[in-house]
């Protein structure tokens, strides 16, 4: 249950102990091992208590593992979750997609993630990334951590875990990655609608229609009945082109209205580097402005677009 989150800073042995403990009441626990390329964390499922020793948690544990929960509905599942991941778990509970009685969350304080994609772009794919808690090493040489902090972590408003614990402050953010992302946002915000249309056309022309954005999203759980893929509904054509890619993203944005928890997995998963979070962030901002709602903060909250307030919705009253 969310209310019983473990809060203390976890050493690796603590983490293993927590996972073992959770396995006493769960069929499996979702977490990470260090078996990914370059030693970065790879998502893993722990079934046996003996396996728990292989669990790691560091700044390369970028994935939002809540994406697996809708597919494991029939099982009792433990999940290692950062604060932003916990919001996704909350939202899945709010939507009655998963049964809170079958999910136990092992909350971990977030040291702020690193942008693995940017590091590999600079040092080569699979370059060894190590994080000993203090220093960030790439191929054995120390690099400035702040340079590879994504904006979503640098600007994170959820440093406070839903369970109430304040995470340690991120090392000084002098970071280039976040600065690049912020610059893009400023540039985008300054554009006219016509310039934005041109901007999106250029961005969407790189889409290869791999659906990674959808697969990585914890809230995209329609799976086989997704209208982005249905040729019956013809919302999108079958092609790989900017127009169809645009409609795909318009569908995603609309269907995530009031539901997106802002974890940024769609953008991180996009192999074409399309800045999908520009739209999601803007929508989250408007939703908060209109309905005072932030998805995944309160598992009991009513979804804002599945409800209304006849008298207090303050626009176009008559």
């Amino acid at each position, binding site marked *: 249950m969310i209310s019983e989150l473990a809060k203390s800073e976890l050493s690796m042995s603590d983490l293993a102990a927590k996972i073992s403990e959770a396995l006493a009441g769960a069929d499996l626990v979702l977490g990470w091992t260090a078996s990914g390329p370059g030693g970065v964390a790879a998502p893993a499922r722990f079934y046996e208590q003996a396996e728990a020793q292989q669990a790691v948690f560091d700044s390369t544990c970028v994935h939002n593992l809540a994406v697996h929960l809708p597919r494991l509905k029939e099982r009792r599942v433990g999940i290692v979750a950062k604060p932003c991941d916990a919001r996704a778990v909350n939202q899945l509970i709010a939507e009655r997609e998963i049964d809170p009685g079958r999910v136990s969350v092992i909350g971990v304080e977030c040291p702020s993630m690193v942008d693995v994609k940017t590091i590999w772009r600079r040092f080569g794919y699979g370059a060894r990334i190590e994080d000993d808690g203090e220093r960030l090493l790439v191929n054995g040489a120390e690099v400035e951590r702040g340079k590879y902090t994504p904006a979503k972590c640098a600007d994170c408003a959820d440093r406070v875990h839903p369970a109430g614990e304040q995470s340690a402050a991120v090392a000084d953010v002098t970071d280039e990655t976040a600065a690049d992302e912020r610059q893009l946002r400023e540039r985008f915000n300054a554009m006219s*609608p016509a310039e934005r249309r*041109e901007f999106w056309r250029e961005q969407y022309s790189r889409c290869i229609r791999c659906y990674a954005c959808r697969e990585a999203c914890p809230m995209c759980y329609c799976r086989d009945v997704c209208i982005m893929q249905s040729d019956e509904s013809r919302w999108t*054509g079958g092609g790989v082109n900017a*127009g169809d890619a645009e*409609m795909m993203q*318009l569908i995603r944005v609309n269907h995530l209205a009031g539901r997106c928890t802002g974890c940024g997995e769609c953008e991180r998963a996009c192999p074409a580097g399309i800045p999908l979070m520009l*739209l999601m962030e803007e*929508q989250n901002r408007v939703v908060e402005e209109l309905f005072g709602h932030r998805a995944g903060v309160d598992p009991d909250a009513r979804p804002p*677009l599945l409800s209304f307030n006849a008298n207090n919705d303050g626009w176009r009253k*008559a």
Partner: protein
Amino acid sequence: MAELKLIGFLCNWCSYAGADMAGTARLKQPGELRIIRMPCTGRVDPLLVLKAFQEGADGVLVSGCHPGDCHYNEGNYYARRRLELLARMLPAFGIEPERFEYTWVSASEGARWAQVVDDFTTRIRMLGIGDEPTVAKQPDDQRTGEERAVNE
């Protein structure tokens, strides 16, 4: 000059009847608006509006029953939330927000309907022809139900 294409999604129970009334009363209205009859504004998926823009609409108007008067009691309350969110998201999608409007016109308000169409059409005429469509209009699906079932 190419003709403007304006699309109107109208609720069957009020605005559509209001538009009918304006017609039988022979009120003068501009002719660019093409009306699509909907069962309720609650059925107007915001994606329909975006799809219309994508396929080349220069303006989209949604009109339904006044709040409190919905034929289905609450359809337009849901619609109001969705459409307001959509209206504020349009600039981020790259669509001029002035090209979209939603409003309420009852079955008895023929004169008001004529005014709404006139105002909206004038506004879009000032803006002129919109952006090129991003996608070509899709051909009608000629397959039979059986062929479709085989493909899917």
